[in-house]
């Protein structure tokens, strides 16, 4: 299955976690990604917000079950921003 996780997304996540490489796809859950733990979670979200210049609300993130959901949330925010 073709993955929709972009290199930009993956690089942003792995860079903040100081991980050189890790394969992730839509179904990958945060707790499967090395070093993505309770202390680092907020830093990962902040890095994604900076990279895409968007604001992710925690209640929205709570409803994301995997990287695919998180990526789709970012895409939707970017779409909304573009249409404004």
């Amino acid at each position: 299955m073709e993955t929709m996780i972009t290199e930009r997304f993956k690089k942003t996540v792995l860079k903040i976690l100081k991980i050189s490489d890790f394969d992730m796809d839509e179904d990958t859950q945060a707790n499967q990604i090395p070093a993505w733990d309770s202390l680092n979670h907020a830093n990962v979200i902040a890095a994604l917000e900076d990279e895409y210049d968007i604001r992710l609300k925690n209640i929205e993130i709570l409803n994301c079950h995997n990287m695919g959901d998180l990526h789709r949330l970012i895409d939707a925010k970017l779409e909304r921003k573009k249409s404004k």
Partner: protein
Amino acid sequence: MKMSKTVWQYWEENAQHKPDADAIIHWIPGQEPYRWSFGSLLATAKKFSVVLKGSGITKNEVCALIIRHNPYFYPLYMGVSLLGAIPAVLAYPNPRLHPEKFRQGLEGMAQRSGLDWILTEAPLAGLLKPLLERERSTIKGTHLPLEQNFEDADISGFNVPTGINDTDPFLLQHSSGTTGLQKPVLLSHKAVTDHAEAYGEAIRQSENDKVVSWLPLYHDMGLIAAFHLPMIYGIPSIQIDPFDWVLMPELMIEAASKEKATLAWLPNFAYNLMADKIHDEDIAGFSLSGIRMLINSGEPVRKKSHERFIRKFAKTGLNPSALSTSYGMAETTFAVTQTCAGELSKEVKVNRQALAKGIVKPEPENENARICVSTGTLIRGCEIKIIDNQRNELPSGSMGELAIKSLSLFEGYRNYPEKTAEAMMGAWYLSGDLGFEMDGYYYIIGRKKDMIISAGKNIYPEDIEDAVGHVPGVIPGRVIAFGAESEEFGTELISVIAETITDDEQDKIKLKTNIVMAGMDIDVTISEIYLVPPRWLIKSSAGKPGRSTNKERIMNKEENIKWKL
């Protein structure tokens, strides 16, 4: 001798005197909370008790509860106890924890504590099956009580078991550690009720108090401070899922504001996380003006964490003097020292270099001095003496190990007499914590041994070294793990130094990822990895790589580590 009441008697009295008052407010993000009154909670607990008895669970058997945030957890836990069985709350496995590691940990714990039954949820039953089928397994079986029809259970003739008095075992808590290193702490009814009484005086507990907590209930601070104390005092406790809180730390502010909470306990890292990671817009309109005590406990207190928190939440009406501190552990039921309600925690500035050598040298005018925050004074029924390595008592103002006497001291580690003997010096419990006393106030500096305290969790370096030592490419037995202070996170982060013969850059990148993954398998995040050549690690007198010496070489940058990734 004065007889204490059993915990059950408190539950019964609260259910009789305030049957409709809020007991547990089970918080669910974006939904109305589930509310248990003291009456409905105890009635449902009795129903569970009847059902569990029918399932073959009997008095004095140890029941592990491995259940996620669920409104029926609380009456189930109480139901186990009302049966005369001994409840032990265990952490539901994080998906990152390797299933075999989870089973090994549980098996080690079962053999040590004499775990009889596991009460859990359906998704975990399959994972546990291989464990139950093992020949040496001491576990009699698993039950899925939340799936049983407990609502229809007849409790008309319900009675708690006879022949149980206040000194009998009430609950079992397990100290941290991932494999066979957990120590089962057994507490009696008396330990819990005596502690509730003495600690209630220290915090000036009143019937208007209301607790808010996201602390896991497998941790002593969560179980004792945020569950048992309110259930004994007859005050409400708002319970937030720890996993939800990590994703949405503002939940605690929302719950505290909406429910007008007055009391909370937090480990130090939570002050940093909440101060740094909550957006102002997410707490707009919320008030913390009702909070009268926010008690920092569970790991050494950092002044900067308090300062950040006060700055962040000043706009919510938080009273800065609500920030309190406490020191305690599972072996003493919970607290040993506590700051007075409404009084700012005392601080003392000491010379950093001298402190590192174990000498307390106050330097009030030195701007580079280390600021030590006190954890308050002794609560009633507790004594502390500071001792040296030969167990001689030291004078006030000297740094040493804290030996503790408490009216709510544990009954020993269950089935572990040699460990109990090791931890005791007559009636004194040897805490393994280092600190000092000054003018009646106690200051905790760190651990005597190498235990890492990260995000309120005690982690044994041996567990990490064992996991990393098995990673292909790492020389077995040539690994050390240690905690390094992080100002950003307000806690210790985990570092590893590992010897390897690998010198290819790409191989080292892969090796680093594999080391992080090995940490994940035991639910530990390794933040820094230093790969060093063979024979780099200096051995201690015991012939093993010494943690403190090698940590110092890395942290003081005494060596040019070219292989750090």
